């Protein structure tokens, strides 16, 4: 599998480490009243869809950037690759 890195161009997936669903960017508010419930879902529950899946890949053997890859998990077709930093900022995180 080849991942088109937004800065480095096409790179072999073997250079990367896979973390999981990009919902891990959306860390719940630890001060909220329902934080216990939210952290359980954050830590353990996954949508695990059969089609397009947004996921976090770490370029460990490369520039050590975190990427959000949108990939069809049935065909392995990659439709979009973004820097995780940009995705997090777009979702309202400050860094």
């Amino acid at each position: 599998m080849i991942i088109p890195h937004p800065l480095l161009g096409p790179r072999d997936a073997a250079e990367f480490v896979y973390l999981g669903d990009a919902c891990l960017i959306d860390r719940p508010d630890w001060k909220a009243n329902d934080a216990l419930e939210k952290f359980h879902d954050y830590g353990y529950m996954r949508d695990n869809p059969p089609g397009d899946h947004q996921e976090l890949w770490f370029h460990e053997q490369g520039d050590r950037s975190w990427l959000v890859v949108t990939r069809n998990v049935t065909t392995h077709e990659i439709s979009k690759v973004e820097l995780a930093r940009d995705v997090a900022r777009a979702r309202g995180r400050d860094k």
Partner: protein
Amino acid sequence: MHYSGLRVFLEGLKGNKGWVKAWREPDPKPEYDIVIIGGGGHGLSTAFYLAKEFGITNVAVLEKGWLGSGNIGRNTTIIRSNYLLPGNEPFYEFSMSLWENLEQETNYNSMVSQRSIVNLYHTDAQRDAYVRRANAMLLAGADAELVDAAALRKELPFLNFDNARFPIKGGLFQRRGGTARHDAVAWGYARGADSRGVDVIQNCEVTGFQIENGVCKGVETSRGPIRANKVAMCVAGSSSRVASMAGMRLPIESHVLQAFVSEGLKPVLPGVITFGAGHFYVSQSDKGGLVFGGDIDGYNSYAQRGNLPVVEDVCEGGMAILPMVGRARLLRSWGGVMDMSMDGSPFIDKTHIDGLYFNGGWCYGGFKATPASGYCYAHLLATDQPHPVATALRLDRFKTGHMIDERGAGNQPNLH
């Protein structure tokens, strides 16, 4: 029809004209006591034990494709009960005891072969961990035997004992472990369930659930609606997909695991051998092929095929302990979709929807669990109480902090 050696002999005299189909092909009835979704090993064994042990025969098994077309037909056929944790080991030992009587119970030749399994160890620390594991196994009634390198050299002289990086210091045997004929396991359970009155319905895809006021009353299928008092999901590999039709999210990711078989060779491996420093396990089938596998590919996948880096990694593991296999040619490889759970252990539990039950999350250890999974699931469906050896396999264990994490890897499914 009862199968026996005498029957084979008599049919041979009569031109083999007396054999009948192993199971019927019934049309679905409008209503059942229990509908099982998934006609794989676990679904069929659930139906079998429901009929045989609990006397419930108004049961349908709904299968989207053909019987045993999922992971029961895509595994490396290893049976063993060499687990560590108290939530797991009694369950797998129960499974092992069911394997030992499987052929008598189902009257079907599942080719259960207790040819032994050995986990190799390569360091002092690993030996100590295996001593602990062996004691846990003995406490649960399983067998375990630790052997040192000298004894192992006599038994498996072809291993690469003096590997510079991972010398083999000994191994943990489970002599009762071994292999079985995976397809025949599904077929034996299907035939046994069918002969007791269970409807095994192929080419019948579940497309939705009938959930009324928080109670599951049946399923929608490609062959019309079917009402049921209890609906039992048993679709490991596709659990999230099926559960999402009931609005459920699960602590599961789907990953692909590859397996491989070499060209047929003369008998060389007496039992199952696993590498302790990398991830590699191998046995030799009765046809002569070396059947082996290793790690999952490591990313979410619903594709029944994997990528080449894992092929290389698995083959390197094989070369590290068995340099002689380097001359064997790879005949086939394939992939199966695994329910990888958040702690590496499975689930057999009720769901929050009344009348809807869940069995899944088998990671890549589902085959060996087939008999006990079916038995315990049948127990839960029949009595609404978990079987004593399956009480820890709960869906809510992450909420209560009772994870069963054999590997100690945390909530990272691709590391289990």
